[in-house]
């Protein structure tokens, strides 16, 4: 293999100097490309549109969103979308950490941030959907003076517990993983940034005691987060599956929701990967080899999602539930058919572009594909919520409801809100893990040198260790 091709296939260059890693990543706090600021302005505009619509909705009532008689409509679909989006960041980061897949190191930080901010965005929607956000505290389980009390048997209560646990745990996982980098930022900045990083780094100085405890605590958190992430979206699926509504009372809903969540999350990681690589000139860290790996993962999850869709459709088709069959048929041929078939195309056909190496390495194509995959996944959530309500057991609810401008504006506003949170994060905090990229570079270099000493061209050796030194007699 030619030298250039070899270099091309590496997850990261192993001759990067540590001082360069520090300066390249810390530069992102000061000096993004103009595109970053254009995106911030775009997000501000979207947020302003969303806030205006929300204010109007509170002024004139929920009729502006035309929810009646379905109640659950675009807001709940978008809530599920954002919960789903949150899944890949922390879950993949935790899984890849446990299996020691070191290519996660340059990308996990922003993916975890994406999780936290997606959850914060998702949490807005049940409140918006209720219409009276000032009464939201009624769902909190405290000793009731007015006789209100949450129904613990309801999956909606479970949602509250699960999402708050997930948000807390994900935010802590993100923070703990960032401590050593906050210390690096503390040592290399001045002014308000130094004060901020000094406070947040808690006095971390990288002693062996701190690293040992850090390693174990981080691993324990990762182990907790995997079942937690799976449970969160399973519980969200229970909001539907525990009902007897046609199209919702489906046994495969929990894995279907989890796979859909992983799918949209992976697609979002691809989008944000490309954006950050461009904004901060991170071609050395967010390499095409890593992009390829995420794309392959996305493709695999897309196929799982497609399979679970087919399982659901065939179960209904060959089953004896005529109401469920009616809903499925109506999705395929009725008023929602364009949205349904678009979902199938974006979710099941378009991912085949990820199967081709040339396309996986073509950044504009991957950017467009990743966005369209998420359009498909948003349509999936809408197709879960609305068609069933339009064909439910209540004849007075048999109506196809198209979202109003107000509800579209609030949905768009949520993208602005998420974008602003994310862009603010990447401008204030190092969104690539400096210490872990250093580890990655260090261990890969040692492995290459060790491989070269043993006559292996690729140097595909396990990480360097003292036991290896002893075997050599060095």
């Amino acid at each position, binding site marked *: 293999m030619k030298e250039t091709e070899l270099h091309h296939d590496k997850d990261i260059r192993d001759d990067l*100097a*540590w*001082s360069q890693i*520090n300066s390249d990543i810390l530069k992102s706090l000061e000096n993004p490309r103009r595109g970053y600021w254009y995106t911030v302005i775009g997000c501000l505009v979207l947020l302003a549109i969303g806030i205006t619509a929300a204010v109007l909705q509170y002024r004139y009532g929920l009729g502006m969103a035309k929810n009646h008689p379905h109640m659950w409509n675009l807001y709940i679909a978008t809530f599920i979308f954002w919960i789903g989006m949150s899944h890949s960041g922390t879950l993949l980061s935790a899984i890849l950490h446990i299996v020691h897949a070191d290519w996660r190191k340059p990308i996990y930080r922003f993916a975890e941030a994406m999780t936290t901010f997606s959850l914060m965005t998702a949490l807005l929607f049940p409140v918006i959907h209720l219409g009276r956000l000032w009464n939201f505290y009624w769902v909190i*389980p405290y*000793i*009731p003076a007015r*006789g209100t*009390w949450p*129904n*613990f*048997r309801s999956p909606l*209560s*479970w949602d509250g*517990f*699960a999402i*708050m*646990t997930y948000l*807390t*745990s994900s935010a*802590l*996982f993100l923070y*703990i993983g960032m401590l050593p980098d906050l*210390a*690096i930022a503390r*040592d*290399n900045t001045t002014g308000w940034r130094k004060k901020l990083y000094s406070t947040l780094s*808690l*006095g*971390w*100085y*990288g*002693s*062996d*005691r*701190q*690293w*040992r*405890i*850090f*390693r*174990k*605590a981080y691993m*324990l*958190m990762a182990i*907790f*987060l995997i*079942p*937690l992430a799976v*449970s969160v979206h399973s*519980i969200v699926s229970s909001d539907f599956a525990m009902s007897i509504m046609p199209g919702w009372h489906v046994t495969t809903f929990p894995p279907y929701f989890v796979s859909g969540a992983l799918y949209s999350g992976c697609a979002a990681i691809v989008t944000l990967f490309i954006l950050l690589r461009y904004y901060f000139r991170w071609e050395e860290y967010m390499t095409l080899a890593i992009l390829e790996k995420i794309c392959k993962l996305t493709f695999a999850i897309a196929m799982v999602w497609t399979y679970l869709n087919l399982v659901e459709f065939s179960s209904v088709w060959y089953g004896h539930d005529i109401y469920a069959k009616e809903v499925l048929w109506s999705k395929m041929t009725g008023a929602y058919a364009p949205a349904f078939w678009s979902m199938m195309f974006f979710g099941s056909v378009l991912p085949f572009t990820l199967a081709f190496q040339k396309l996986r390495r073509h950044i504009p194509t991957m950017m467009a594909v990743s966005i369209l995959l998420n359009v498909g996944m948003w349509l999936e959530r809408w197709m879960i919520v609305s068609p069933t309500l339009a064909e439910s057991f209540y004849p007075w609810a048999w109506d196809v409801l198209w979202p109003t401008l107000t509800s579209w504006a609030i949905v768009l506003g949520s993208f602005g809100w998420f974008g602003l949170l994310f862009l603010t994060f990447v401008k204030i905090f190092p969104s690539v893990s400096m*210490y*872990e990229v*250093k*580890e990655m570079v*260090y261990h890969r270099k040692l492995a290459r040198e060790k491989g070269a000493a043993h006559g292996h061209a690729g140097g595909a050796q396990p990480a*360097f*260790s*003292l036991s290896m030194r002893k075997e050599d007699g060095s």
Partner: protein
Amino acid sequence: MKKTRRILGLFGNFDEATNAIYDIRASKIAGLSVDDVTLISPIEHPEVEEALGDRPVRVQYFTFCGGLFGLVGSWLWISSAQAAFLVQPQGGKPVVTLVSNFVLSYEMMILGGVLSTLIGFLVGARLPSRPSTLYSEKVSLDQVGIILELDDTQIEPAKNLFRNHKVLEIREEVMK
């Protein structure tokens, strides 16, 4: 003798730092043991930490206790809440429902485990704290440091040991 001084040696080469620790372990300086050594490193570095020998980490006990507390505590909390609210229509179902309470307790077990892991981490790592005045910002860049707690007679031998392993810089402070 009483430990009166603390010195920091900064190394550019991790192997040299590791070998310096091995020399200390081999008791090349009388009265100085590996327990007097603190390694400070810019990356998680199990290879160099191996030279320090086993040093126990007890954060998992916090995790276990927190998880157990979350599980049992939330079960009791939710059950007592259900039992206190008698107006709720039961529809023939039990007041304290096992299945739904299991879901909620499972979530709270994880939350308890995560929060207690955080507490265990902060307690074990002695955070928040002020970094030692010996701390060098070069450690957050690309150097590895060894801090030794010494009595007056050990200072010169320790510095010589560092020099034998190509130390880049030595700093010293009086212990309070």
